[in-house]
């Protein structure tokens, strides 16, 4: 029996609680979001709340200073309630969802290449399409079954065999046909296993065919609503031809509802093994997706019944959890997923190119002969809990291995790496760093646990690229004063990935830190000081910040960032070594990931995250996974191509690699232990420092 009422500010939400309930848990179950990334064990210190009134107790904690404690600041995860209370969630502990809505902007450094068309020679040919047909009324001479009538007309129009129909459609077929005066629109799905009729609706609705593409990240879920009926390549040529904005009606992001069960995939897998855990995770994910769908529908003015399909790309663990399949063995050696094939209805087919060497991904419209292997037909969205309609289908991008997932396969498709004649490198830097190397003939990939530093994890004032995130910083070489720009140009609340890159690059360029990332204490500035976590640099003093504390970067933060960038660099190096190639031979280095809204390539080179290559070789595509997912939705050729790409990609297990550790240690230096790899950076450091 709930004994107390707890009021959360500024949302003004009142919820019930029992004696001794944990404040963070109360917030969780009542959908009040408090930033908490450590799962509630008091280590991250991010869930700071202010007890305005009432009875709540929490021990004195090292993450809360004495002065804050006296002002009522507590860590929600360490606080229990013992009476009615009013709790204020300060801005730094709230999640600013609006900020995630911003569409990706092409970075200024790379703007000249923003309009590059990544993909060649594809045409709009969605896996789910609508076909309007008019049937002959039955008569005494022609009294075949309704289904036979449908079949006859369909075959006459489209000349196809291998037709199937959903059992569900049959139930209402007689009334639908008659009420519609025998003029209906069929929704059909075309895969390697033939053509399936999944819906029959009255009248002509051919121009109402929409889909939603999802990137299912461990941290963030992004979605786009797409207009399939009105999309054509002709139209694409008039607009941006990069596939980023093509026919997008609306775009949204939200935090993955599973975050409360753990920050990384391992934590989620652990959670899935607990009793009822898998169902809980699956539901949390679908709930987030349903929320996004609802908003997308209203933003785009689309009816739920006109969404014919949903296409998802996510890492292997997210793919399993979405489908409600146990991911248990993903984390146990030798790391075997239950499935890696996509839920697409396609099997990997033979060669990628035709005799002339042209990619045939989207030119072969007929189901290819000889496609072999197990095919997983797309499932009804309803069956996994998505609230949409009765017939809509869910497609899921195929994965490569336990730690190289469908998001990467989608990215490889999205950026066109699989079509390139010359070898290029693709890197997706999220919580894990995944790297793909290759061209249209071969592909290799690896996954390195880079750590979440670029997404703000493990960084004292780290945050995702939301409102108030410091994203650009310049440090004055003489006065050591910083110039700070934030997302949304508000008071700083924290530092996002691109900001971190800028800060560390600035610190090394001005000589405030040495090449091992440790502060030099002989510089004349009050901004370098000894704080509670060792030496630190103050980027923003409390009065200028949103969080009422000094925003600093500590030696520990720099260590974490160096570790992250070292893992990515070393992963690339090992992959290149495995192929007998070097960075210099890369036609393009394609970067995807959530650093922020832009990435300054030169700064990223200063810290040794990216190799020292001419700037024009780099492409930043933002969310590669979403880019690929939308292409799947536009053209089923890409779905088959994805199966092929996923199946043919050679996965290099870095955990088995003898040279990875060596390369990692070598890269744990700014910019790198092998300074000959960064001659330009070294020259700059010599002149500046």
């Amino acid at each position: 029996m709930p004994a107390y009422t707890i009021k959360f500010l500024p949302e003004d939400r009142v919820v019930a609680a029992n004696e001794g309930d944990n404040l963070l848990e109360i917030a969780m179950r009542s959908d009040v979001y408090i930033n908490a990334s450590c799962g509630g064990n008091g280590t991250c210190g991010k869930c700071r709340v202010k007890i305005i009134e009432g009875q709540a107790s929490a021990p004195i904690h090292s993450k809360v200073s004495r002065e804050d404690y006296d002002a009522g600041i507590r860590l929600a995860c360490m606080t229990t309630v013992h009476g009615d209370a009013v709790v204020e969630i300060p801005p730094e502990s709230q999640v600013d969802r609006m900020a995630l809505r911003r569409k990706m902007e092409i970075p200024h450094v790379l703007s000249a290449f923003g309009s590059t068309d990544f993909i060649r020679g594809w045409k709009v040919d969605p896996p789910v399409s609508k076909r309007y047909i008019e049937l002959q009324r039955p008569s005494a001479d022609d009294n075949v079954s309704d289904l036979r009538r449908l079949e006859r007309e369909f075959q006459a129009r489209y000349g196809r065999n291998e037709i199937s129909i959903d059992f569900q459609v049959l139930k209402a077929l007689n009334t639908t046909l008659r009420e519609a005066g025998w003029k209906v629109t069929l929704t059909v799905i075309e895969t390697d296993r033939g053509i399936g009729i999944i819906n029959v609706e009255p009248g002509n609705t051919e121009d109402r065919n929409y889909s939603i593409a999802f990137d299912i990240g461990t941290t963030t879920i992004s979605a786009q609503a797409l207009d399939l009926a009105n999309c054509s390549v002709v139209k694409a040529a008039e607009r941006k031809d990069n596939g980023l904005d093509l026919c997008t009606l609306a775009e949204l992001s939200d935090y993955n509802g599973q975050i409360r069960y753990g920050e990384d995939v391992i934590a989620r897998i652990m959670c899935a093994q607990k009793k009822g855990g898998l169902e809980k995770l699956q539901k949390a994910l679908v709930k987030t997706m349903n929320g996004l769908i609802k908003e997308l529908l209203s933003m785009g003015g689309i009816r739920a019944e006109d969404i014919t399909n949903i296409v998802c790309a996510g890492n292997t663990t997210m793919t399993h959890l979405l489908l409600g399949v146990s991911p248990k063995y993903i984390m146990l050696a030798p790391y075997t997923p239950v499935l890696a094939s996509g839920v697409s209805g396609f099997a990997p087919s033979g060669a990628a190119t035709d005799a002339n060497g042209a990619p045939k991904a989207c030119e072969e419209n007929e189901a290819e002969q000889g496609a072999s292997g197990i095919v997983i037909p797309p499932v009804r969205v309803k069956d996994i809990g998505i609230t949409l309609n009765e017939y809509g289908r869910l497609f899921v991008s195929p994965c490569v291995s336990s730690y190289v997932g469908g998001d990467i396969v989608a990215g490889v498709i999205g950026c066109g790496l699989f079509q390139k004649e010359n070898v290029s490198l693709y890197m997706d830097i999220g919580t894990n760093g995944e790297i793909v190397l290759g061209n249209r003939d071969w592909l290799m990939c690896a996954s390195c646990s880079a750590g979440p530093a670029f997404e703000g994890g493990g960084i004292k004032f780290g945050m995702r690229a939301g409102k108030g995130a410091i994203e650009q910083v310049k440090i004055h070489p003489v006065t050591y004063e910083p110039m700070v720009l934030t997302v949304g140009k508000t008071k700083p609340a924290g530092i996002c990935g691109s900001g971190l890159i800028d800060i560390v690059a600035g610190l090394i360029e001005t000589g405030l830190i040495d090449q091992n990332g440790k502060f030099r204490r002989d510089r004349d500035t009050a901004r370098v000081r000894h704080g509670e976590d060792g030496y630190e640099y103050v980027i923003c003093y409390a009065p200028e910040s949103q969080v009422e504390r000094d925003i600093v970067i500590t030696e520990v933060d720099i260590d974490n960032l160096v570790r992250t960038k070292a893992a990515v660099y070393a992963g690339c190096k090992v992959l290149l070594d495995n192929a007998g190639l070097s960075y210099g031979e890369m036609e393009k280095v394609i970067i995807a990931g959530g650093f922020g809204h832009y990435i300054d390539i030169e700064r990223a080179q200063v810290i040794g995250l990216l190799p020292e290559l001419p700037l024009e070789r780099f492409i930043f595509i933002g969310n590669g996974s979403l880019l690929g997912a939308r292409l799947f939705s536009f053209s089923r050729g890409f779905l088959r191509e994805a199966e092929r790409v996923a199946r043919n990609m050679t996965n290099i297990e870095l955990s088995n690699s003898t040279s990875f550790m060596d390369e990692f240690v070598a890269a744990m230096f700014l910019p790198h232990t092998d300074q000959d790899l960064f001659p330009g950076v070294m020259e700059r450091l010599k002149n500046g420092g």
Partner: protein
Amino acid sequence: MGFEIPKIKYTGKIQEITIGTGQKAVRVGGATCYPFYRFEGEMPNPARIAFEVWDHRPDDWQEWAIEPYRDVIHDPAAWARKSIDVYGAEMIALQLKSADPNGMDRPVDDVVRVVQDVVHAIDVPLIIWGTANDDKDADLLRKIAEVCEGKNVAIGPVSEKNYKQIGAMAIGYGQVVMASTPIDVNLAKQLNILLGNLGVPDEKVLMDPTTGGLGYGLEYTYSVIERDRMAALTQEDVKLQRPVVCNLAHEVWKTREARLTGKDDEKLGDEIKRSILMESITAMSLAFAGADIVIMRHPESVKLVKEMIGELMG
């Protein structure tokens, strides 16, 4: 046409470093080939042996290790002199064991006094080896750098944590530093770069790759020194072109196999011969890998190793 032995093409040279002053100063490094590969390049200076002397009477040495020094073991200066006068030591390595915070934790000033006694008592080059406790060494070795001004001693181990404090004083007082890293080529190189950035001249840096005794990780040290040398000599990695010092005596003599007597286990045979051989084999292996200075304990082991080096250099 006669047969020609294939030769490795070297592009680098190990930095030549002088330790000590005057006639008895020792030069190490300078090689343009792998250790003892004198048919492929120059090896102007042979590997050198430094006799270890403790700054305080050791309490856990085997009887047979104490024996050669029994009369002087309580007096570091006399001990050092005996090593030179009786056993022909060309270098002394003073181990500041008593300063260790996990042991006696003697105050810095007391230990500095011992160093002064020893440095004034001898005319051969002196290596001064701290506690490997970053904080204590930062304090201790800085003072030692100061009091040994003009003696061109080698001080260490200098780590990534305390290189700034010790390095700065070493520059000021012209001492050599021993840059110590945990058995890793990249970490060794990084510390050398950092010391360079600080302004420590190239000819004032020795590398300590961290040494394991025979049967206790020697092969790791061996591989790392070998790789240091490959990078230095064949890959033009200038930041690794530093002579190597190995502090091995303590590692060998503390092992179980160097302690058990023939009575404990007949199969192990004579303990004196055994431990001396263990020390000799460790030292010789490291010299083969590329060590330029080996720090040793027993006069008999030293004699064996010296003979062998002599033969290889002859």
